[in-house]
């Protein structure tokens, strides 16, 4: 997984966001999405510790210990942003005011199950992810297509503890974009530059269909 791949995922994901949308970006690749939001699109970034209007990371020397995001990074605050307590933050999230959440994962499967907080011998914790996938209107999983050891992350069935059952709506990797159909199941809608339908099929254990209108060289 090169930095280029991560950026490619983030850039494609950024194009999903609509003007005025309140969006929560998880740690890792999702956090990069903020750098790729198209001009003219105002996205309100929310972080679950208790801040909206999260701007770019603070330039060195301007870090304020009391202005950080949920990943503990020093950030800036855009005009119109504000602070609130964590209880209010989750009222916002569960109450339906967060339009989109983008998060990384360890595994995701064709039923929309997401597993991202614990693996054998390594307890990380779900943080706000369980609340976000249950509360946000659209849930995006942004992930490398395969794990470092080459094994599938888009699996036939999640084997790790679930963060959310059936909550994933869109999966974006450096190779492909899958979107859940209203009737259930994911459809492969886009294949990234340099990849082929056959190659996607070979590295994806998750069940999916290929959309009639599938785009090749899409991003």
């Amino acid at each position, binding site marked *: 997984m090169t930095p280029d791949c991560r950026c490619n995922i983030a850039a494609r994901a950024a194009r999903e966001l609509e003007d005025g949308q309140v969006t929560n970006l998880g740690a890792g690749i999702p956090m990069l999405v903020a750098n790729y939001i198209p001009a003219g699109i*105002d996205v309100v970034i*929310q972080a679950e510790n208790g801040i*909206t209007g999260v701007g770019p990371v603070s330039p060195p020397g301007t870090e304020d210990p009391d202005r950080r995001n949920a990943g503990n990074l020093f950030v800036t605050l855009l005009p*119109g942003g*504000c*602070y*609130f307590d964590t209880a209010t933050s989750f009222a916002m999230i*569960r*109450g339906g*005011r967060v339009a989109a959440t983008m998060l990384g994962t360890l595994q995701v499967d064709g039923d929309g199950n997401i597993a991202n907080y614990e693996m054998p011998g390594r307890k990380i914790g779900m943080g706000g992810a369980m609340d976000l996938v249950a509360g946000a209107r659209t849930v995006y999983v942004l992930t490398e297509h395969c794990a470092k050891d080459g094994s599938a992350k888009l699996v036939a069935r999640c084997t790790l503890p679930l963060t959310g059952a059936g909550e994933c709506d869109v999966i974006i990797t450096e190779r492909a974009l899958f979107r859940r159909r209203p009737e259930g199941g994911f459809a492969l809608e886009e294949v990234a530059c340099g990849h082929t339908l056959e190659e996607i099929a070979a590295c994806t254990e998750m069940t999916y269909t290929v959309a009639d209108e599938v785009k090749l060289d899409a991003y």
Partner: protein
Amino acid sequence: MALNKMIPIEEAVARVESGMTLALGGFLGQGVPLTLIRALKARPVHDLVIWSNDGGYGDDGVVELVKAGMVRELHCCHIGYTPAVGRAVEAGDLELEWVPQGNLIEMLRCGGAGLGGFLTPVGVGTAVEEGHQKVTVNGRTYLWERAVRADVAFVRAHAGDIVGNLCFRGTARNYNTTVATCADYVIAEVEHAYSAGELDPEKVHAPGVFVDAVVRADVSYCGVRR
């Protein structure tokens, strides 16, 4: 973040339709969204289900909508200062549900926060028990109370910016912060309007993310001249 939520008040109240559930901020005469309530009186809507602390104060507030025959149900905890509301209930023109004040604000908070209900120790052994399931936890008896969400909410703030961040003054805060969370469409009337970035982000009492529309408040509606 420059999304401008300021719209004409007529456009805002046009979101209210007959039969809808409407939640109102305010406490007796304090922080009541009277500008919105009065603009609503010009709309041909009826059978409203209203959640509010009270029936208003004197001739102001919910009582105005009741007198105009626009309200089917009122869920509140006090109508002692608005005899006209009591008369409408006695006459069978208005359905009243008494909800203890703390349960009332918590039901709205619960709905706004996407929760499904809560256990309250308040009302046990009273008429409020009726229709409520009793649950004992660690030896204490609670009533199971439901979460409430409204279709539209009206709140009033001292200051607001174009993205809907709201600041309140003194006891005019009351229900307004919570009511601003509990509806699918939240309208705030603001006494003073600002651009994005003009309000101190530490002093925002209700984040703009909860608010859908901002209108100008009539500042003559405040009980006492400032």
